[in-house]
């Protein structure tokens, strides 16, 4: 399996980089993180219309660009590097993958084109106040109602962009069911009757999360009733790989920032980067980031090839990227000294993103455990 990038892919990367340099400087990140929406609709429109990014990995039959997980990974890596504030992870990664995995043909044709074109945004509501990322944590119920619709009742939490999403994809279970049985995915407009959405205060203000209460809200079943667990599990794996790509982009940005600072900052009459204590910290960062990149790029290629080892590789990528990101963030703060823990310095923006990403979709211990079970299987 080949997992280094082609010239075309590198060119694609540089197009995105140019866009982000222009549209997502940290001044913009700081402005948007103070707003409840957390993104700029004008920039979202541009990256949809000019670069067709929201549908980058969505098949052409459903209005997407028809590329795959590797290109999606490139987009996420660059978004992670620049901390772009946009509903991409929620719409394109989480919700679109859930629809692709769970919905029937007619539903895909109905729902995906608007997401691919950036006309509508979407969010995936899986986690509940218990904080779990698997089917076992789902308590929200779906009860059959008239016209083939279902009534959702329960609470979802930590829903990325849940407060702004035009469309919600909700994981729910049939009353009395347990475990993987009886889990299904449902689609419902974000503003439907019976839905109450509240923006949660988050340590990472660059990614908006919400608490959503469903009080007999009417939703449409995606695919077959009770067949949602495998689709959800696959969605989590694909999303973990995409998020891991975002994380290594962020880790690289932090490492670059730390190394640049070490080359500039003078103390004792010399740049601090000339001290071995600093050099070795920088080299350690490089080792960890490069190892994580290998795991992440390989996992993206495995997703593209539909490799049977995908679940194990997804967990490997998520755990490795999370470790590298949080460690690099901590080192970056340390190397910056006093300025590194001020609000005005940008490092904390990535540091907080590193922390929220570390736990999002399951923390490294959870994924290491999954990895172990998956390779042993």
């Amino acid at each position, binding site marked *: 399996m*080949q*997992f*280094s990038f082609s010239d075309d892919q590198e060119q694609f990367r540089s197009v995105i980089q140019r866009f982000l340099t222009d549209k997502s400087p940290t001044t913009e990140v700081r402005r948007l993180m103070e707003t409840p929406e957390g993104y700029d609709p004008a920039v979202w429109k541009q990256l949809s219309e000019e670069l067709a990014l929201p549908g980058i990995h969505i098949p052409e039959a459903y209005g997407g660009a028809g590329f795959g997980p590797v290109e999606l990974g490139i987009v996420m890596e660059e978004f992670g590097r620049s901390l772009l504030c946009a509903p991409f992870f929620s719409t394109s990664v989480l919700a679109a993958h859930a629809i692709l995995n769970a919905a029937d043909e007619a539903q895909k044709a109905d729902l995906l084109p608007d997401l691919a074109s950036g006309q509508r945004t979407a969010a995936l509501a899986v986690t509940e106040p218990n904080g779990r990322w698997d089917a076992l944590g789902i308590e929200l119920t779906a009860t059959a109602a008239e016209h083939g619709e279902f009534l959702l009742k329960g609470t979802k939490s930590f829903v990325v962009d849940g407060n702004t999403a035009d469309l919600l994809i909700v994981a729910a279970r049939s009353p009395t069911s347990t475990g993987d049985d009886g889990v299904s995915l449902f689609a419902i407009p974000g503003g439907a009757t019976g839905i109450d959405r509240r923006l949660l205060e988050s340590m990472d203000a660059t990614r908006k999360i919400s608490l959503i209460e469903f009080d007999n809200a009417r939703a449409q079943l995606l695919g077959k009733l009770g067949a949602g667990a495998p689709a959800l599990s696959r969605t989590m794996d694909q999303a973990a790989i995409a998020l891991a790509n975002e994380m290594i982009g962020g880790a690289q940005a932090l490492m670059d920032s730390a*190394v640049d600072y*070490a*080359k500039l900052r003078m103390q004792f009459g*010399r*740049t601090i*980067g*000339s001290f*071995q204590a*600093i*050099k*070795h910290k*920088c*080299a*350690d960062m*490089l*080792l960890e980031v*490069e*190892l*994580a*990149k*290998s*795991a992440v*790029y*390989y996992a993206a290629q495995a997703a593209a090839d539909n490799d049977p080892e995908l679940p194990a590789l997804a967990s*490997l990528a998520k*755990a*490795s990227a999370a470790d590298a990101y949080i460690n690099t963030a901590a080192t970056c703060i340390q190397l910056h000294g006093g300025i590194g823990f001020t609000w005005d310095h940008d490092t904390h923006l990535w540091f907080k993103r590193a922390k929220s990403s570390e736990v999002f979709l399951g923390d490294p*211990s959870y994924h*290491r*455990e999954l*990895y*172990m079970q998956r*390779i*042993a299987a």
Partner: protein
Amino acid sequence: MSQIDEFRTSTRAWLEENCPGGARGSGQIPWGSSSIELEPDVRLWLQRMSERGWTVPTWPREYGGAALSRDEYTVLIDELKRINARTPLTGRGVNYIGPTILELGSDDQKTRWLPGIARGEGGWAMGYSEPGAGSDLASLSCRAELQGDHYLLNGRKTWTSDAMDCDYIFVLVRTSPDKPKHEGISLVLVDMSQAGVQVRPIRLLSGASPFNETLFEDALARADDVIGGVDNGWTVGKRLLQFERSTHAGINISGSQGGRVVESHMPETIKRYAPMSAGRITDPVIRARLIRFEQNGHAQRLTQKRVIEELEARAPGYASSAVKLSGALHTQEGDEMLLAAMGTGGIGSETEATRAWLRQKALTIAGGTKEVQLNIIAKRVLGLPD
């Protein structure tokens, strides 16, 4: 069928037919030494593979290789691994000095030395470190004086692994004592079967003595065996170190087995020693450590693969420091973890685990210490100042 698929098919067929049973699985691997007797199957395997140019697959045919492309080389390595065939030849000849001569030697040197190296004719020692020149290698003082068409060598080299069984040694010597220290060094090839070269064993903390001190007293070297030019030895010697590190790192495709990734057997090994219940390791600390070890090892193996894919030249440059170091740290963590899992049993030195734990302390020292590798990464990859 694509060209590469055809290559795979024909390679697979040839290997199946020509790799003897005694060259599969674990066992003897030749490294050129004339004082080590080869088992019959091992000798046959070496002979067949070298006739095909597959002991050094990427070298040009005229020098004993098969001129394989990187992709073909990768296929060959895959196919060898598939039938569990051992590498036919390893050592400092095919992996360190050979690639260096190929890249920096004269046509005459290539013709005289490379075909023999490719056939495994002669084991090579490495004459780099001295008692007073370790990490600060450029302060070496072993002298070489030109006398007509020969150099006379005088001085001491240390940590010369395997020197007691070697036929040749490549030596960093000071050819111009008056020049600044980096500018007066040369790399020269020396025949060890002469009275002027003496080898004394050094006993290691593991109790074994594969290391030596090698003394030169008016030892002779041919003047035309200086590789890459007189007083250019610092540049040549550093390039050789990159081949050494990339060999340690498993990514030297200018050698005999780069890219041959060794899968982890640690879970099975740990389970032999750690207390178990219902198929699970009961000690949560060991279990968590094992899982993290496996995670890191997998990322390490994927990095080897990625570095080889991304190589523009046939041999890596500074990436070799990073992969070598992370690999060494990983191996040592495995040794530590295994000993921890063994508990009291770990102090018995009869097990391979204990011997490996002792022996592999060298991994973060040999071929440039951990600290030197970190310095190289900081300077050459990240551009941090001196």
